[in-house]
């Protein structure tokens, strides 16, 4: 408001003034990122909401698109391959919890002196740096009948007849995929927690050691309280992450045999069957769910922090 008034008052020398310089810098620095943000996030988002009310393909010309109202949304909830796929997220949530516990455990061990600690840390972290497609091949190979996992279990005493088909058997295949997800991401979680544990004041550990506290006590009374925030944050993030789990089923099984998570199905509906309207509606529904989860987590955090202050 001040700017525009000034703009008119001192027209000629305006761009030389501080205010003018500031505006100029702002314009120069903001135009590219904001354009990108609008073109690749907000415009597609608006389009998505619009498409979700139409029956259309990518190639359908604008005037041939059929407005169907809320039909796509009704379909999302009616078709059992759409909304029902969300129940697969439960597997991934369980996996995420296991992953956090493992990460926390190994982070605690590796934050203190351990022989070969750096090597173990590296081994556990490295899977995070492998690209998704490679992961897909590695685990297709790993789980194939008679290959890596079967051989190892055979050596350990299991007979081949009793072993399931890890990626086909519907009782187990989702767990197989969740395991790869844990394999891939737990190291990253662990490194994160190690960072948090390392930032705890060293004198606290020394004092505890002087008082004769043992490892579990140190963990419970010193480590856990000081990394509570980051752990809680990760627990909550894993919920939204599980809802949108996509990579492992996409690259390993391509959603076959009942492993299609919500996004795998959505991807197929969008890019293979080209039901863009339905896919958009699916995306919007999940976005709303994620949005609600995020608001709940914000409230939860507020509550937790108020508790902590009291």
């Amino acid at each position, binding site marked *: 408001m001040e700017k525009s008034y000034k703009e008119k008052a001192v027209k000629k020398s305006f761009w030389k003034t501080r205010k003018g310089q500031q505006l100029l810098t702002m314009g120069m620095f903001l135009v590219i990122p904001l354009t990108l943000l609008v073109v690749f996030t907000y415009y597609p988002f608006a389009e*998505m909401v619009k498409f979700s009310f139409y029956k259309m393909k990518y190639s359908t010309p604008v005037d041939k698109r059929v407005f169907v109202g809320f039909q796509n949304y009704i379909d999302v909830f009616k078709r059992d391959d759409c909304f029902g796929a969300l129940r697969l997220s439960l597997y991934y949530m369980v996996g995420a919890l296991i992953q956090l516990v493992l990460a926390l455990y190994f982070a605690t061990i590796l934050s203190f002196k351990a022989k070969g600690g750096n090597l173990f840390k590296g081994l*556990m972290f*490295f899977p995070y*740096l492998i690209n998704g497609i490679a992961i897909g091949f590695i685990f297709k190979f790993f789980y194939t009948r008679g290959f*890596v996992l079967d051989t190892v279990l055979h050596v350990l005493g299991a007979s081949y007849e009793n072993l399931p088909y890890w990626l086909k058997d519907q009782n187990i295949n989702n767990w197989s995929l969740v395991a790869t997800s844990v394999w891939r991401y737990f190291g990253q979680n662990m490194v994160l927690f190690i960072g948090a544990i390392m930032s705890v004041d060293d004198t606290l550990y020394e004092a505890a050691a002087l008082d004769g506290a043992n490892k579990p006590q140190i963990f419970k009374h010193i480590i856990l309280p000081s990394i509570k925030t980051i752990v809680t944050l990760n627990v909550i993030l894993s919920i939204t992450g599980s809802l*949108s789990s996509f990579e492992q089923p996409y690259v390993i099984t391509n959603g076959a045999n009942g492993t299609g998570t919500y996004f795998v199905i959505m991807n197929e509906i969008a890019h293979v069957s080209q039901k863009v309207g339905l896919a958009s509606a699916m995306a919007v529904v999940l976005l709303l769910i994620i949005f609600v989860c*995020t608001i709940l987590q914000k409230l939860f955090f507020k509550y937790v922090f108020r508790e902590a202050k009291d």
Partner: protein
Amino acid sequence: MAEKNMTVLNYIQKIVITFLKYASLLLMGTMCLLPLVSCLITAFKTETEYKSTNVMTLPGSFLNFDNFIKAFKLANMGRAFLNSVIVMVVVLVISVIIGTQLAYVLTRFSFFGNQIIRSMYLFASLLPSVAMQVTVYNIMSGLHLVNHLYGYIIMMCGTDVISIYIFIQFMENISTSLDESAVIDGASYFKIYWQILFPLLKPAIVTACILKGVSVYNEYYCANLYLQSKELHTMSTSLYTFVGPMGSQYNLICAGVIISFTPALIVFILCQKQIYSGIAAGAVKG
């Protein structure tokens, strides 16, 4: 007496804990390594070896690089690596420049809309990228950006929120008194940004480059969607060559997989410390 009992107990407890500690480390270490080692073993096997021996049997020779050479040629991985490097370098440079500039404006100038822009980025971070591609695809083809390296690069720069957060957070911790004294000395805003703040942001830039670099190098979903012609394959999508008719020649596939993550492995070994601290720093944003 009681005291002595305590020390014996303590001693036993210590041994048990140490044993459990190393046992669990070894177990987990093995589990992390097993899929990769099996891949490595298989990659060195000849066709006949692969067909006749068990997957975990060691190959006749660890100097048999035939599979690697064949996989490298077949998937055109030299070109793919070049593409990946080009994409990564350009994306990193552009996102560092626009990210730091954006952070500079948002943390140093108070103006109407500052909070709105921040909220816009926050909301953008909630949108899962796979879901967005349903319509981004439409836009990309409308702008004729599909099947061009630069199109993919522009898109990758546009969908970046994490590094912006890192820059904002870091910039907020740099005292504004620096800017103020520079203003008194008559420095322009651009000069303040470029000559004073940008050099100070170095740790944040390293962090952002590591996080972004990993995700760009490994990105395959959009690369597959927007870089369809074979010469445009990146390191990760070049592996798609092995899908289909070669789908069961795992000696070849494993070699390809190993080639694809070797650059990451080398960088990891060289910059372990920076990568770890980058990961840890990137998570603090909340």
